[in-house]
């Protein structure tokens, strides 16, 4: 399989260089791989995820994701719309839109007709088991349901990669297991690359590969290093 992520010597600093969030990261991720990124708070794992999704740009180095050179490409919104699906810890659904409208939001960047958009949004809700909640506002849903809506939204434009930043961070363990199962199922059935940032080792163990970030550097990018401890969520 070809590499979907190629990163070389990536550096990112904040506050005029006083805080080095990423300090020379080299990383490749294969297409269809499930990778978890672990590390303590402030280690740079979320910064790395933001770089992968072009939500932030590095100071130096090179980063190529899904065929886009993110440092030279000016159409980063197009890259995010077509290649990336984000799942945030706090779901970030728009509170005033209904569940189905939240899923349609990314599709405004596509060429789908209004009917096609609605049909796809309802199909995705069906996949995450929330078709009956389509017209409700996010505030009427439980935390787990909101995160499932966020997963459906992430899939709206058939992305190549799902980037999930602590997707179970604010959920109880039972709901977390459900959400992770759903993400892993989608990763398998839709052949989408899944990259999860987490500080929960139980979540990290589910991945094909775990990358450990410490002080802005990769200290462990070993393939399947934690596979022997993989837990079963089936």
């Amino acid at each position: 399989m070809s590499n979907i992520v190629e990163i070389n010597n990536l550096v990112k600093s904040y506050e005029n260089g006083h805080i080095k969030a990423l300090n020379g990261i080299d990383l490749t991720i294969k297409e269809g791989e499930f990778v978890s990124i672990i590390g303590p708070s402030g280690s740079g794992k979320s910064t790395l995820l933001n770089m992968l999704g072009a939500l932030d740009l590095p100071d130096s180095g090179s980063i190529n994701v899904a065929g886009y050179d993110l440092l030279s490409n000016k159409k980063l919104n197009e890259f995010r719309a077509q290649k990336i699906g984000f799942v945030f810890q706090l779901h970030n659904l728009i509170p005033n839109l209904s569940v189905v409208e939240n899923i349609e939001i990314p599709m405004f960047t596509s060429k789908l007709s209004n009917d096609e958009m609605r049909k796809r949004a309802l199909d995705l809700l069906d996949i995450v088991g929330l078709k009956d909640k389509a017209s409700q506002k996010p505030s009427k849903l439980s935390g787990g349901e909101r995160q499932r809506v966020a997963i459906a939204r992430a899939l709206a434009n058939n992305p190549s990669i799902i980037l999930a930043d602590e997707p179970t961070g604010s959920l109880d363990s039972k709901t977390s297991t459900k959400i992770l199962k759903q993400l892993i199922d989608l990763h398998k059935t839709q052949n989408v690359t899944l990259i999860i940032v987490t500080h929960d080792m139980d979540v990290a163990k589910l991945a094909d590969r775990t990358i450990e970030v410490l002080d802005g550097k990769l200290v462990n990018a070993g393939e399947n290093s934690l596979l022997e401890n993989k837990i079963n969520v089936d």
Partner: protein
Amino acid sequence: MSFLKFIIKNPFRRKNSAVLAIVGICIGIIVIVALGGITTGLVSTFEDTIHAGGADFSISGKETGTSAYGTNTIDANWTDKIANVSGVSEAYPIYVILTSVGDDYMNTLIGIDPNGTTMADIVVSDGRIFKNNSSEVILGKIYAEDNNLSVGDKLKVDGEDFDVVGIIETGDSNMAGAVFTSIEKVAEVNDDSDSISNIYVKVDKGADAQEVADRIDSMYGDNITTVSSVMEMGQMADMLNMLKASSWGISLLAIVVGGLGIINTMLMSVFERTREIGVLKAVGWSNRKILTMIVGESLVITIVSAIIGSIIGVALCTLLAPMMGLNPLFTIDTFVQAFGIAIIVGIIGGLYPAIKAIKLPPTEALRYE
């Protein structure tokens, strides 16, 4: 859902914010519409007052001389020519001759169109005005008193019996001593239907009388001349210009007050949504699409507010202004001004915070509380 429908519906999803925004913008619109209506009413009332009754100026033959009404004549066709000059609202002929009236061998007989009597400041105090081409006269009060005549009496004019149908009051002593009948009858008495003495001219509302008089002079100055009315036209124009300038000043104040209110409301509304803008960027919306959405929403809110504000402004003004002795007048200009201001400041108010928000990196926008 289409993007357009999304833009139209979106502002009203946040009901509290929408209500606050609409109230804020409405206050601005009410101020603009109410002050606009009051100042337009003031200008209109002033114009009505200065143009009421008497003509703005009169026209006589070039060689008229100093006679009170002019014994020289001009061709009757001049009335139509003058009526067609730009800025002229009404033009009525007056035909003044000296002829035998009653016991007097020579008295002033004035022929005038019954519809143009107000132009000559003729106010009937008793009876009615004469009918066109009838053997009816109205008398100046002094003439009636001196000759002991009243409505219903007969009066001989150039040997023919006329019915006295009305008595007029006027501050003009020449007119108070005169007898009035229709133009046709005077032409018949004088045996000359092609001539008239003067033309009374009233200009369009809002037109500058001096400008119209100058225009007539420049067009026909070789044959006729314009004579200003009792009140100096220049002085009137100065007063009107002063009132219009004050009106503009008040409108400008209303625009500033209303406009700042609108901008403030839109600023608050967009800053509240910084996190939402971060989400839209994360899912791939372009900056242009986000700007279009925010500006579109601002337009929707301001147009709805402008409609509601205009209705409330007109209602409040109509109810309250008369209590203060004011007579508001709402013209299309007032509403065009209110809507124009609302839309312009609505766009500015939406654009500024939207540009600030889209310049934020998505990661910062997503962290915004």
